[in-house]
């Protein structure tokens, strides 16, 4: 029996900018917390979103509680370097003199992949973290909001690249451990987020191919965000079309209120028609189980919307995994 989705220790959510990755991460965090999990959500050097979605003030680079059972942190390479550095060196002064030296800092900034490795290393560190008193993991679930750029997820390729390039160095040994976590289906699950639109669909499918070929990571769900639900039932939609045709032949003026209302209906139907092929492609071609999240008519998503989405998502998860 495979591990149920929310019982993984290390869940990564990825997708291109603008598809609602953070919304999905916040929703998953809430759904997991509702099942009694202690969750840490990690955002990576980005404009922080999770705290606001869950109705908390910004957290920054220090871990803070954002909702019952949910902690969050927005990591930067500098903060990760400081922590990893301190952990390894144990000597604050030496750390400062070495890593906060401007010349050294310039050099480190230029090392390819180092920022990404540092961020991943910090996520990994939190997965390993244990309560010193009880020996229990500090968190049940580490949820990483992982950005995808260009043609893939450079962030997740880093450990492998480092291992290939740097063979036996301490850096590579660390990278190898991280890689083992990333490939462990018992602990780790990578989910994708997309929208029923052209570019996000193509990108999601390309990402999935990359995950399969290059990363070989265990995958979870494809979350399709902002799915527009029908306004009219099929009979009404037909009526709308008929009425539009009829009115096009009218001799006299048509009441502008009626035209405007029909316009709303037509625009809605057009958008439904537009999203359909992408929904079909995503569900048919991704080879991943899909969970659809409804489009909400609000601009500022906040705790109320996330609560709503979390209930919706939990129900779909239960359906997909067979409710107990």
């Amino acid at each position: 029996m495979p591990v149920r989705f929310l019982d993984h220790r290390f869940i990564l959510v990825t997708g291109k900018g603008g598809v609602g990755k953070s919304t999905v991460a916040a929703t998953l965090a809430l759904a997991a917390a509702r099942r009694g999990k202690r969750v840490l959500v990690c955002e990576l050097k980005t404009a922080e979103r999770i705290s606001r979605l869950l109705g908390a003030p910004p957290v920054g680079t220090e871990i803070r509680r954002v909702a019952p059972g949910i902690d969050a942190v927005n990591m930067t390479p500098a903060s990760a370097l400081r922590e990893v550095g301190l952990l390894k060196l144990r000597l604050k002064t030496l750390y400062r003199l070495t890593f906060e030296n401007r010349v050294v800092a310039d050099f480190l900034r230029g090392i390819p992949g180092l920022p990404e490795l540092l961020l991943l290393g910090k996520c990994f560190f939190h997965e390993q973290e244990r309560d010193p008193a009880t020996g229990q993991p500090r968190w049940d679930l580490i949820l990483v909001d992982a950005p995808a750029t260009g043609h893939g997820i450079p962030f997740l390729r880093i450990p492998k690249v480092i291992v290939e390039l740097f063979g036996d160095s301490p850096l590579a040994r660390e990278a190898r451990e991280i890689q083992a976590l990333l490939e462990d289906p018992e602990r780790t699950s990578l989910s994708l987020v997309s929208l029923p639109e052209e570019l996000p669909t193509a990108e999601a499918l390309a990402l999935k191919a990359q995950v399969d070929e290059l990363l070989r990571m265990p995958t979870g769900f494809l979350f399709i965000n902002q799915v527009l639900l029908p306004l009219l039932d099929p009979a009404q939609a037909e009526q709308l079309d008929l009425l539009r045709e009829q009115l096009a032949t009218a001799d006299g003026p048509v009441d502008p209120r009626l035209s405007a209302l029909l316009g709303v209906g037509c625009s809605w139907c057009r958008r439904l028609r537009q999203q359909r092929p992408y929904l079909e492609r995503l569900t048919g071609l991704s080879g991943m189980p899909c969970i659809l999240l409804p489009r909400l008519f609000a601009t500022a998503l906040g705790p109320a919307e996330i609560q709503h989405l979390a209930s919706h998502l939990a129900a779909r998860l239960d359906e997909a995994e067979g409710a107990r």
Partner: protein
Amino acid sequence: MTSLVRLLAKKRVIVTLGSGGVGKTTLAAALALQAAWRGRRTLVLTIDPARRLADALGLAALTTERQAVPLAGLAGPAAPGSSAGAGELWAMMLDAPRTFDALVSRHSSSEQARERIVGHRLYRTMVDALAGSHDLAAMEQLYQLTSEGLYDLVVLDTPPKEHAFDFLDAPSRLLGLVSQSRLRWLLLAMAGEGGEGSGLGTLLSLPPKLILPTLARFTGQETLRDLATLTLALLDLGTGFAERAARVEELLRGPDCSFLVVTRPDPLTVEEALGQRRKLADLRLPFGGYLVNRCQRVDPAAPPPGTDYGRLAYELAASSVAPLLPPAGRLVPLLERLGEGLALVRELAAHQAQTLAPLATDGPDPPLRLEIPEFDEEIHSLEQLRRFGGLFLGEQVEGPGG
């Protein structure tokens, strides 16, 4: 909106900037097409376009070679003050690895020096897999395109990054690196070519014999040496490289360039847009205005909130179109349902107006701000791309026609 038209008519470089997923690439193409349509020789340099956009531009595939986009098939009236088709539209995609290779070749002092870089075992990884070079490559490409003088206007779409500004910082970062003589000392020591007594210790405030082992504990000795030799080789590309970067910076800061911040009507993206404008100011780069993509419009003729749809149906039944309407028993539920849709759309529009308010009051002068209504069509053709551009440049747009 006339002021965006003016930017398109006068500038030599327009850069679209914005968070991921806001529609920068499509807007860049639409703007370039408008400029060409209005008579300018225009090139759009794009990073990662959708298949559909390449199709719309009439290109089998958007490649890294510049390609002419045939404007002849475009219908509709010419823009005022120009003759349609007088301009040209060219499109190309950025090829970061190749541009970067060319850059290295150009600035290497000798074939040997070039080999030291291109043949380095870390070089390909750095250029191919780990990006970052994208930024420099875009800058380099921009430099080449503008200095050739073949185009009146280059529209540059910025890399799809969380941090659009890595890109803008690229030239100055490089300049900073090259001018860092102290960094060179450190690297020499790492590569095992520098001496202990070279004065490095005083410059670094800590002797290299202490720094290097500490760094090596992270990276390993071998790695450190590799990284140092590559960085050194790159630094040896020397001043030509830096001068070029400085000239791009000058161009971007000058009066011929304008940065348009593309955003979407949701609070976080708007906040990011405000941040992007501030950052432009910090970098002394010219801000042209905000383009707000995908705004919800409500037909002003739409029935107001609280409309009694039974009554509306009754009134319609008394109008001249009465014979075309279905019986009230079917019409009223349909109108009511459409009314519910209208209420949602109206709610969204109100949210958006509130969300966008900070853009209007940002800074001493209200900036150029264009709200672009959500385009109901998918853009599959050049004609649709032109209509989309016309939509926000104030041209009369006919309906999509079914």
